[in-house]
C-alpha cells in the first residue's frame, strides 16, 4: 500500500499507482509466458490437457467456475485497492468520516445476488454428477482394478484365459481408444484412490466396497496415473500407466497377453506406443 502522501494531490498519486500496477501485471504476464515456455504448465498429469471425455468435462466445469471466480476476485481486489488508496488517512487531523452503520438495500443485494449466482452454478454441477455417475454403456470394456499396498492390478473380465479366469496384468492398463471403459475398484487392504488426471478424476478404492466409474480416451497415448489417497509408506510410488491404443493394436496386445499367460510364461514387456 502507498504511504500517506503529504500532498493532497491524490489524483496524481493514484495514476502513478495504477501505472505501477500495470507494469507489475505486465511483468507477471512475462514471467508466466516464460514459465509456460519451459513446460511449467505441462506434464503427464496436467488436468488442463484432457485426453478423454470425462476429464474434458471436468476441466470445462473447472474453467467455468475459475473464470467466474477470477472475475469476482479481481473485482473485489480492485475495490479493495481503490478503497485503501482513496480512503486512506492522509493526516491524523483528517476530519472523522461520516458514520455509516449499514445499508440494508446494499446488504440484501450482496446477499441475494451471490445466492442466485451460486444456485446457477448448481445446475451444471448436478448435471455433471449425474452424467459422470451414470452406468457405463453396454459395449463398455469391463476392467476390475485391484489396489494393494503399493501396486495396481487390472483384470479384463471379457477376456478369459484357458483356465477360465480373467486375464490379469500389473501396472499397465491397456485400453482401446474411443470406447468406454467401465472400471470396478477393489481394495485388498486400505483405502486407495484411482486417478488418471488426463482421463478422469479420482474415485476411491475402498475395502469391501466396489466403486465403479466410466471413462474413455479420445486420443491415443500413454496416460499417467497414481494413487491419490494416502495409503502408507510407499504411497508416492504407487503408480500405473494407461495405454490407449487403436482397437486393432489393443486386440493384438490382448492376444499376446493371453498366449503368454496360457503358456505359463511371463508376458513380454509391452511396447510403448510412440508419443502422446
Amino acid at each position, binding site marked *: 500500500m502507498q504511504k500517506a502522501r503529504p500532498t493532497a494531490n491524490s489524483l496524481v498519486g493514484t495514476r502513478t499507482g495504477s501505472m505501477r500496477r500495470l507494469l507489475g501485471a505486465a511483468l507477471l504476464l512475462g514471467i508466466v509466458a516464460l514459465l509456460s515456455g519451459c513446460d511449467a504448465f505441462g506434464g503427464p498429469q496436467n488436468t488442463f490437457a484432457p485426453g478423454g471425455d470425462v476429464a474434458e468435462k471436468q476441466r470445462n466445469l473447472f474453467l467455468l467456475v475459475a473464470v467466474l471466480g477470477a472475475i469476482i476476485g479481481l473485482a473485489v481486489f480492485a475495490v479493495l485497492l481503490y478503497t485503501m488508496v482513496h*480512503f486512506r488517512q492522509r493526516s491524523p487531523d483528517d476530519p472523522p468520516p461520516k458514520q455509516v452503520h449499514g445499508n440494508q438495500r446494499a446488504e440484501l443485494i450482496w446477499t441475494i445476488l451471490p445466492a442466485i449466482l451460486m444456485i446457477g452454478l448448481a445446475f451444471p454441477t448436478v448435471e455433471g454428477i449425474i452424467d459422470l455417475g451414470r452406468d457405463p454403456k453396454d459395449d463398455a470394456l469391463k476392467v476390475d482394478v485391484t489396489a494393494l499396498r503399493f501396486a495396481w492390478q487390472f483384470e479384463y473380465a471379457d477376456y478369459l484365459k484357458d483356465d477360465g479366469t480373467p486375464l490379469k496384468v500389473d501396472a499397465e492398463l491397456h485400453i482401446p481408444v474411443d470406447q468406454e471403459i467401465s472400471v470396478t475398484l477393489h481394495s485388498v487392504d486400505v483405502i486407495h484412490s484411482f486417478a488418471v*488426471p488426463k482421463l478422469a478424476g479420482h474415485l476411491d478404492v475402498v475395502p469391501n466396497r466396489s466403486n465403479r466409474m466410466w471413462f474413455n480416451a479420445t486420443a491415443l497415448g500413454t496416460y499417467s496415473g497414481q494413487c491419490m489417497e494416502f495409503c502408507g509408506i510407499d504411497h508416492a510410488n504407487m503408480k500405473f500407466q494407461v495405454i490407449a491404443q487403436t482397437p486393432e493394436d489393443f486386440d493384438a496386445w490382448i492376444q499376446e497377453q493371453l498366449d503368454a499367460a496360457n503358456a505359463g510364461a511371463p508376458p513380454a514387456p509391452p511396447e510403448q506406443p510412440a508419443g502422446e
Partner: protein
Amino acid sequence: MASVTAQPGSPLAQAMRDIRRQAGTYQGVWSWIATVDHKRIGLMYGVTAFTFFLAGGIEALVIRLQLAAPNGNVVGADQFNRLFTMHGTTMIFLVVMPLSAAFFNLLIPLMIGARDVAFPRLNAFSYWVFLAGGIFMNVSFFTGGNIFKGELGAPDGGWFGYAPLTLNAFSPGHGIDYWAFGLQILGVASMASGFNFIVTILNMRAPGMTLFKMPLFVWMTLVTSFLIVFAMPVIAVALFELLFARLYDATFFTTAAGGTPLLWQHMFWLFGHPEVYILILPAMGIVSEVLPTFSRKPLFGYPFVVFSGIAIGFMSWGVWAHHMYTVGLGPVANSAFGISTILIAVPTGVKIFNWMGTLWGGSIRMNTSLLFSVGFIAMFTIGGLTGVTHSMVPSDYQQQDTYYIVAHFHQVLFGGAILALFSGIYYWFPKFTGRLLSERLGQVHFWLTLIGFNLTFQPMMILGLLGMPRRIYSYSDGMGWDVWNMIATTGAFMIAASILVFMYNVVVSLRSKEEAGADPWDARTLEWTIPSPPPPYNFAEIPTVRHLDDFWHRKYAENEEGQLVPVVAGGANGEHASDGHGIHMPSPSVFPLIAAIGFPLLAFGFIYDYALVAVGAVFLLFGLYGWALEPATEEGEEGAH
C-alpha cells in the same frame, strides 16, 4: 477411590489444605502456575501456541526442503509421513485453536465488562490440559528409537487418520496411539473452554450489554464455543472407536468382521467441517474489531455480520461429505453436499462485502494491524473462491487430494486465520503489555508474510491442477512440477524469515520505554477504557453499557448527518476512583494443574503399562477432589463476591 473421603482431620484433607495455602503465597514465576486470572492464562495460551507454531513451522520447512526438487532425499518416506502428520495436527490443534483460545481468554471478560470468566479454575484446567496434550503428542517424536538416526515415533497416518490405515495391521508402533490419545486430551481442554465461554458470555455481561450490543468478536466467540462443544464429542467418539480397535481389537473399521472404514470418515468430517469454522470464526471476529477502529467507522451492517456468523455455524454441520466426494457415496449424496457447499459460500461472501463496506468511506489508518486485516480479506477471498470450485463436484473429483486442496485450505487457515491472528496481536499487544509493537518492523513482517505466503501457496494451486497428489514424499522429474515446487519452497523460507522479524519485534518492543497508554488506537470497545496492562480485577467499577461500541460513544456523539462530535469530558477513564481494594478475586489454585497432569499419565498407561493408569487416576482424582472441596473464599475471609 470412591471410598476416600476428606474428613476435616484426615491427612488427605490436611494435604489439600496445605497445597491450597501454599498456592496463595506463590510469587514470581510460581504465581503463574497457580493463576486463575484470565489474562495470565490467555498469555500462557498465546506463548505456548506460538511455541508449537515454531515447531509446526520447522516441520513445514523440512517438508518443503524435501519437495523443493524431484527425488528429494532430505528425509525418507517414513520421516516425511510423520512430519506432515504432525505438521497438520500441530497447526490445527496446537496452534490455531489455542491462539484463538488465547484471544478468547484475554479479551472476552474485558469486552463484556467482567472481572474474569465464569469458571476461572476450569479455565486454568483447560490451559494445563492443552499443554499436557500438546507435550504428550510431541513426546512421540522421541519414542521411536534413536531420533538422531531419524527413527521418529510420531504418528504417520495423516492429520485425518483414515481407517483402516490407522489400524494395527497397517500402522504398527505407537505413533497412532499418541495421536488418538493426544487428540482426546486436547478435546477435553477444548470442551471445558467452550462451556466456560458460553456461560461467561451469556451470564457475565456488564449491565446494559444486551446480546446485540456485544462486540462482534464476542459473538464469534459464542458461535465458535457452541461449535466446539457440539463438534468435539463427535471426534471423541470416533477416537474412542479407533483406540478400542487398536488396544482391544474392536472391529468398527475392519471389513472382514463387518465393520466399515467409511464410518470413520463420516465421523471425522462431521467434526472436521465445523472445525474449519472453529478455526476461522474467531479470526473473522478479530478483523471485525480491527477494521472499524482503523477506519474510524462502525462495522458496516453489524446485524448482517452477526447473523451470517450464526448461519455459518449452523450450515457448517451440513457440508461434511464434501470431503468425501470421491469415496463413491453416489450422485444423490454428492449433489446434496455439492449444493450445501455452494450455499455456505453466501454468508461468507456477505462478511467480505461488509468488511469492505466498513473500510469504504472511512479514514483508514495504514498500520500493521490494519494491513494484516486487509491482507486477511484479500487472501480469504481467494480461499473462499477456491472453496466454491470444490462445490463443483465433478471438477473436485480431479482436485481431491491434490496440492490444489493444500493451496485452498492454506488460503483459509494461513491467509485467513493466521493473518487475522497477527492483526489481533498487533492490535491488542499494547493492551496486555503496555507497549506498542514497532510499526517499522511490523510493516516488514507484514510484507514478507504476504509475499512469502503467496509465493508458497499460489504455486501449489497450479501443482494440484497439474496432478500432483498430496502426501507424497517424492516425485520424479518430468512431471512438470519442478519449477512450482521450487518457488513454493522459496516462499516458505520467506514466511520463516517474516516470523523471525516478528519475534525480534516483540523482544525489541517489550524493552522499549514508551508507554502505550490505555487507548492508543482511539478504539471502540470496553477493554480500552482500563489501563494497559489491565489490573488483575480489570474494572474497578463494572461499567454500564448503553451502546454497541460503548467506549466510542462515550468519546464521540453523532449528529443527524452522521458526523462525529467529540463528547466533552469523554475519553479514557483509565484513572478510577477506586484502587481495586476490597474487590474479591478468585483464589489461586494448583488443583487444575494437578488434575491435568493425570491425563497424559493415563494415556501413557494405556499405551505402555497399566500401572501408570493408576498413577494418572490418582493425580486426576486428587486434583478434581481438591478442586471440588476448595472453598469459594479462604477460611476466615468474609465471602463477598
